[in-house]
């Protein structure tokens, strides 16, 4: 398993975000996440700008594993990026 840091931009209400978090937890992978919809004002704006840099379509989850960007709950791509 690689030691790449994992970051998830997610929505609190999105099914595939939940599945992604569950998948990573099940694989005992540590990750940071931010539920963008729970943020407000300037903070939300700034984070959305960040997401757009990785994923211009700005959809969730947007998952950053090391230098890889994965959009959506895609098990196989995540496994590969994580070296699982």
């Amino acid at each position, binding site marked *: 398993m690689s030691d790449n840091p994992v970051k998830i931009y997610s929505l609190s*209400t999105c099914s595939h975000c939940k599945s992604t978090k569950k998948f990573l937890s099940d694989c005992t992978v540590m990750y940071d996440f931010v539920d963008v919809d729970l943020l407000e004002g300037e903070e939300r704006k700034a984070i959305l700008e960040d997401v757009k840099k990785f994923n211009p379509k700005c*959809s969730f*989850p947007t998952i950053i594993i090391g230098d890889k960007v994965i959009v959506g709950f895609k098990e196989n791509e995540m496994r590969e990026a994580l070296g699982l």
Partner: protein
Amino acid sequence: MSEANSRPNRLIHEKSPYLLQHAYNPVDWYPWGDEAFEKSKAENKLVLLSIGYSTCHWCHVMEKESFMNPNIAELMNHNFVCIKLDREERPDLDKIYLTAVSALIGSAGWPLNVFLTPELKPFYGGTYFPPVAQSGMLSWTDLLKLISAAWNDPSKKKKLLSSGQELSRIITNHLSWSSSHGPIDTNLLDNALNNFSTRFDRKLGGFSPAPKFPSPSIQNFLYAYYFYAKNSVQKDESGDTALEMANVTLRAMATGGIYDQLGGGFHRYSTDAKWHVPHFEKMLYDNAQLLKNYLDAFLITRDTFFEKVVRETADYVLRDMTHPDGGFYSAEDADSIPPDSGENGGHKKKIEGAFYVWEQREIRAVLGPEPGEIFSYHYGVQPQGNVEYDPHGDFIGKNILFAAHSLDETADKFSRSKNDIAQMLKESKIKLLQARADRPRPHLDDKILTSWNGLMISALSRAYQVLEDERYLTAARNAAKFIQKNLYSSETKLLYRRWRKGERKIVGMASDYAFLIQGLIDLYEADFDPGWLEWALELMDEQIALFYDTKNGGFFMTRKGHDKKIDLRVKEDTDSVTPSAGSVAVLNALRLARFADSGKYSTVVEQTLESVLSRINSQPDSAPELLVALIISRLKPVEVVIDGDRNGEDTRSMLRTVNSFFIPGKAVILVDNTIRSRLARQLPFVSSVKRIDNKTTAYVCMGKSCKPPVTDPEKVKNLLN
């Protein structure tokens, strides 16, 4: 059919309309069952198995000519144990013996007459036979004599038994395949499209020379392919080709005589290449599948021509094909007593299409001279009749209505405004429909089949989603309730196949499960009652447990032990006039996975796609419905979750937007406080779904990633575009 024999045979105790049509034959018919098998064994007699369905024209002809003939009946009764079978009750047996006859003579159809050894092994058969020899055609009488003579000659009997064994071995291998499967050909979809392009009749529409069948599965594939091509790079042209072929075909059919221009609904198939002269029976399954075709055409093109066909066909089903307690009848016959037969000396012979065809003088009499002339021009009515292809002389002087001229042409011809003409034609149609209602009706096959009802529940639910006519939803819902009440046992979880006059019979087959599940998913997406979804999920588990071939993929038609006399469990690998149960099951599994947040069907989906599609690599056009499933499995899944008041105008408007898109395989879920916790049992995430600013809110996900929620239908439109 007619009651020539005063005493009925055993078929009088059956409920199948087809079997009852033969209850007064002098032939001593048995239904499929032990009594017949035991007699055949005890008396060492061959079995004559005769298969058909109640609205089958040539079945009626053979019945009148041969099975009503006392001398022929005597020959049959003396030498054979004669069994009548309704293929709509037992599609599994039909498939087996149809395959046997195809293997023997290269083609097959109905009536299907098969000769079996007492062990029920087929050794010879055919379809229609004339009572006396015609040029090049063996007569039924001669065939009966030849076969019984062979059976009574020891050396020939031996040969006959061994050929029965050999044929059974061949059809078992063919129908219950267990081949290992390879990868799906990467060009399969394009190859299928090319095959359809080659088969396509560019001028007249359709995918074969005459006779032309409506082929709803093909159009279904073409629309899905169009969407697929539009949403992948570099494939736009082939998408347009697909769209064009489907649209041309649907237009040609709906302007032709295969479409009931007055009453809506489609007849069985066209005997000529230009869709003018049909076989007039109307089948529930054709109309259900075609309804969805025309709905898809309307969604894609927004051409109200297609919408009109949807409405007229749905109205036909509601008017003529719906049981008062809910549920849909199976079919209407082609033949009926001509309306003027009373005047001609009480001549009561049924004639094909008599209910539907018109002489020009009749039209004039109903409509008056001027509207009569305008109607005649528009619908191609000629004083001498308009049927060029009339091999049996049924249509001399008669007209089969078809849209001969457009509204513009008709308006031009009579120098009237288009509106005037449209209004006049509308009124004329109503008057003629009323006049037609006084004619003797064709026989109605009023049995209620779970599988075919599933197809119509699906069609009317989808029609409601798009057109918002509450009557369609009510009819779909009533049919689902009817099946739940009369054809399903919630204690034993057993689904049955056929209901008629209070009797349910025959345990469900894979197609009953698959088509009903499809109907329930579409019904859920129409009224958002989670009960339909829960039932669909339960039935899906049952279907996999009972019919899935865990070893090789694919679905058997029947459960284990369905018929103790028949070991062979058939697996269909092609779509016919109805899609195979396996094709629809894969489609259902792909859709249900989105409603149940579940990966548990993925093996069933992959294994079935691979095993069937690798078998049909060289003829990819033989399973168009399964190709639709393949397309959906490759598309980014689209899911829309709406949190809103189910009766609120905001919610309606959001749903209207979502349902105005043609997106194969999309899933729509409605959450409100009355059902939130119930839905969360299958879809845990819905417990966290909420409304923003107390407004109806849509959550749109595509390809397993989601967009921030929106409350404006316009924004949903942008997201789905």
